């Protein structure tokens, strides 16, 4: 069952995966915090970034990466302005909103399929980051360091923006109590747009980092990313960003670790093991793993 492995190596790989899912979880958590909306179409933002990188291959790298992030932010805004805002205005229920994000995800995948075909495009923008250096018998690829450093920087920047600026204060106020914050003069739509922009920047960054290790961009690439990150967000606890980030990290880390630890015959059941753990966590702590006992549970969606 358990294969003989190099634990240092396994942990290094798992950290990289965990950090990526942590970033995705924060992107999903940002929008959820303000809107109480779980955006199933979040992964399609990452896919979009992947396609931009693939089609701008050979351009100067900074240009390619900036274009990628720009396109992802534009798509995130489009999701909000074209789909989610009209729905909210129409007074859609939470369940309808959830299915709507599902529909947007479906639609975007269909568009990708129509525009770029099903065979997939290769991204080579930062491919050389896959080269490794060795520390104590553990191969550490440069991308691992880049992911961890970028992840921490982006998390830090997000936290700083939320904690130290006036817009951040508005976002936190809206996340705490949307109606009251509006009465007190927070411009709701500005806050919502801003949270979509921030989640778009994070998705763009994830596109760049994710495609280094998984260079094949396909129409449905974003679906498993969304699902695993979403699982992480819920496991960690949706109410606060750091708990969402930790939850995303935990799911990615456990997945990465088990992928190395299980022998190849049992590793095909890895998703089952992770999903089983998720169910267990949800049953024991429905409000999330990293949530204080005192906090009362609020039923939403």
């Amino acid at each position: 069952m358990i294969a003989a492995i190099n634990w240092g190596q396994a942990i290094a790989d798992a950290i990289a995966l965990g950090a990526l899912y942590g970033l995705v979880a924060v992107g999903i958590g940002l929008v959820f915090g303000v809107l109480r909306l779980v955006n199933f179409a979040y992964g399609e933002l990452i896919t979009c970034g992947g396609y931009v990188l693939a089609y701008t291959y050979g351009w100067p790298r900074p240009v390619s990466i900036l274009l990628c992030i720009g396109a992802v932010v534009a798509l995130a805004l489009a999701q909000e302005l074209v789909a989610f805002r009209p729905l909210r205005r129409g007074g859609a229920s939470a369940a309808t909103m959830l299915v709507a994000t599902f529909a947007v995800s479906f639609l975007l995948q269909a568009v990708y399929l129509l525009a770029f075909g099903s065979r997939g495009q290769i991204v080579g923008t930062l491919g050389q980051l896959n080269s490794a250096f060795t520390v104590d018998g553990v191969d550490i690829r440069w991308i691992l360091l880049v992911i961890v450093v970028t992840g921490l920087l982006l998390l830090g920047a997000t936290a700083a923006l939320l904690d130290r600026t006036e817009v951040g204060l508005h976002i936190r106020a809206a996340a705490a109590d949307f109606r009251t914050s509006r009465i007190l003069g927070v411009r709701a739509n500005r806050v919502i747009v801003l949270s979509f922009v921030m989640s778009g920047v994070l998705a763009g960054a994830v596109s760049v980092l994710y495609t280094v290790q998984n260079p094949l961009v396909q129409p449905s690439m974003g679906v498993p990313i969304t699902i695993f990150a979403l699982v992480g967000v819920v496991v960690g606890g949706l109410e606060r960003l750091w708990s969402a980030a930790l939850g995303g990290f935990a799911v990615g880390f456990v997945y990465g670790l088990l992928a190395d630890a299980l022998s190849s015959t049992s590793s095909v059941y890895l998703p089952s093991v992770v999903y089983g753990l998720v169910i267990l966590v949800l049953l024991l702590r429905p409000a999330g793993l990293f949530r204080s006992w005192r906090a009362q549970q609020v039923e939403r969606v």
Partner: protein
Amino acid sequence: MKLAAPIVLVFATAAVASGVSSAHRLEFETALIMVAVVVALYVFVGNSGVISFGHMSFVAVGAYLAGLVTLDPETKGFTTPGLFHVLKHAQIGIVPSLALAAAVGAAYALVVGLPLMRLSGLPAGIATLAVLGITYNVLSYWGKVGPGVQTVTGVPEASVWSLAVGVAIVVAAAYAYQRSRFGRVLRATREDPPAARASGISIYRERLIAFTLSGALAGLAGGLYVHMLGLLQPDLFYLDLTLVTLAMLVFGGVGSLWGAVIGALAISALNSFLGDAENGVDVGFHLTLPNGTRLVTVGAVMALVLILRPSGLTGGREFGWRRS
């Protein structure tokens, strides 16, 4: 009247299906199966107001069991040699296989529901999604319960009319449930949980009953599905079907049986029409759409209807109810 309208619609679809060429028959038959799946989903989601992403698990186990027990044992020796002994050597008729499908759907839903029905809101949605993930993963790799990632063909196919009878049974069961005391109580918990609790209703128990019944109907729908297609494959019962059936339900209107039926038929019709149009079709003029338009248009129409009519086409009303 409220039951008659959906049933008539089911048999009307079957009548059209039996009259058209075999290429088109498949589309109408698929639409019928979608009605069964969406109605099964509606029994739980519509009445309880809790979203479930896991129902295709029950459809899948129903389909697998009904498919495997009707396959010729000799064929199974070649295609799926690793099956459990009972599954490998059994060969029964279509009707008993459907009963088994319903039973296994109910049993699976009960086992899953016992712990999961304590959850509500988003954790419930994610937990049911996790169940779907496990089901898909196990069906894809475990040789004892199915062919794995390969496709198995040669499952006996049922006639259009017998499929329609099966679908009508699902619709009638859903109707009977929502008229029963259990259905009414569950709808009360949907509308006002604190008030329902205060009246001595156990939300957990009522949801579990609906979940199990819904699982049974989903299993039956899965059995019908496999006897319509004649083949088995895990990808048939995963996220795509989950999304499409949920969208059909919301499109028609989550709150009513009529909405579930209408949503399933309307999206199926749109889907088939566009599929034909990609190959060229005459609608007064000759229309040929580029490949891939089907998915884009279906996605766009679903999103559009949600935006324009968030409570669905029927607005959650049963057939014949007056606006008041």
